[in-house]
């Protein structure tokens, strides 16, 4: 068995009385890209939020490098080395680009490396350097997504979780973002990716899980799932076909 960085074991999550996740189990191997795909409301975002401690699991275990995360608060999960780029980016719009990045490196683990991380971010995203004193809210959608990812990288994550990074972006930026994810992975980053852009996500993912109404309905290597026409039709639906055009 390869070195599993993150292991989610039979997790149940509820919103009030409504069960959102049913015995969900996934594994993220170190150095890989793992994609979570599925329709809207399938529970992908819920799973990410549960891993990062925003939601709590009613049952099940979440292990990160062998350490239990179930009862940790979000800030402590970050401390362990998981950075979560939430859906909609949630930048601090009234803060400058630089201030956003500074907060990305807030945790004691990352703070001493601030200068180093900043240089890396600016190399990856030169546009952020030119706009470092602008308010984050004044950036374009694509630039904001870059800032959100850069802010997460400032925390020197062992695991980077991206929730819908391509949502609402122009096709050119979508391409850029997926290239970026591959690049980051080549630089040894482990990435857990939630996407509705299923084709693109499966193309770059080493491993993928398909969620449907709160349950994992199938899993496999990304390109295998991509190739399996039947399975795609059954579980991923027509969205794939539409996106292919």
């Amino acid at each position: 068995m390869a070195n599993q960085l993150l292991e989610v074991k039979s997790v149940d999550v509820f919103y009030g009385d409504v069960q959102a996740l049913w015995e969900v189990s996934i594994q993220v191997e170190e150095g890989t890209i793992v994609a979570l795909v599925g329709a809207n409301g399938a529970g992908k975002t819920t799973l990410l939020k549960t891993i990062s401690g925003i939601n709590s699991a009613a049952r099940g275990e979440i292990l990160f490098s062998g350490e239990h995360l179930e009862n940790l608060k979000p800030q402590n999960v970050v401390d362990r080395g998981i950075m979560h780029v939430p859906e909609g980016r949630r930048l601090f719009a009234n803060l400058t680009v630089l201030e956003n990045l500074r907060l990305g490196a807030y945790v004691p683990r990352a703070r001493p490396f601030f200068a180093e991380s900043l240089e890396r971010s600016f190399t990856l995203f030169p546009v952020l350097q030119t706009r470092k004193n602008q308010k984050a809210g004044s950036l374009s959608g694509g630039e904001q997504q870059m800032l959100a990812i850069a802010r997460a990288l400032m925390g020197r994550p062992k695991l980077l979780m991206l929730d819908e990074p391509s949502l609402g972006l122009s096709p050119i930026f979508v391409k850029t973002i997926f290239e970026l994810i591959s690049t980051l992975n080549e630089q040894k980053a482990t990435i857990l990716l939630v996407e509705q852009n299923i084709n693109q996500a499966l193309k770059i993912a080493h491993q993928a899980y398909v969620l449907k109404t709160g349950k994992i309905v199938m899993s496999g290597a990304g390109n295998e799932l991509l190739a399996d026409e039947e399975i795609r039709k059954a579980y991923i639906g027509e969205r794939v076909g539409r996106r292919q055009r």
Partner: protein
Amino acid sequence: MNLILTLRVLVNGVLFGTTYGIAAVGLSLIFGTMRIIFFAQGTFIIFFAYISYWLLTLLGIDPYLSLIIVIPASMLLGSALYYGIFKEAAANEDKNISLLLAIGLMYLMENFMLVVWTPDPRSVVTSYTTLVFRPFGIVIPFTRLTTLFIAVLTAAGVFIFLKKTLIGTAVRAASEDVVSTTLMGINPNWVNAVAFAIGIGLAGVAGVALATIYPFDPSYGFIFAIKALIALALGGIGNVYGALLGGILLGLIESLGSFYVGGGWADAISYGVFLLVLIFRPQGLFGGSIKKA
């Protein structure tokens, strides 16, 4: 003659308004991170006015010098209040609980002061209480000028803290999006406690400043809280810089109001302005901040 009189009214308005301003900055900070209006703020201002009164009458410590004791003590009290009373409520989605806690605290403090210090007005009288400057015929009491000076200094200190330090940046970030700050690894309790410490610290400064200017009694705390709230609304709730300006503006409105239409109605005018701003310009008069969804 009329010009000088008007000028005098305006200057007094600004001088007194700065006290509202620093109180409102405190309210604004606590509102930013906790999303509640800390109603007890005014009562704490009066509480620290009494502390400064005691330090003077019992220990002979000059009120301005007492700031050295009052500021750290009030900041400590602020964070203790957060951890002792508001911590659980802050995590709760229902903000009404925090609001009611603040109301309960105000009620408690006001009545506590009534018992300890009685309802009779007290004032802090020093050798310089009656000292007055008269530039160009405008009467400016020394204590009011000092208050202005202290207020500006304090506000500048808070603004620099918010702008330059990492935790200050975190406080500003939390007032935009608390969940997102926790995803940066920032402990929301820590941020809230800092906001409370500064908020009550500012109440300490305002209390000492107030004590040197005006006689005060326990019931004045509630009125002061409303005044600070008006200043906050004028400046835009959640806008820390606007709060200071809002305070000064309120001081001007009151000063002009009581000069031209008389004492009691001046209050009604400020409440009226408050309502109009709430209804027609809820982002405040100096709002330039980016709207959030």
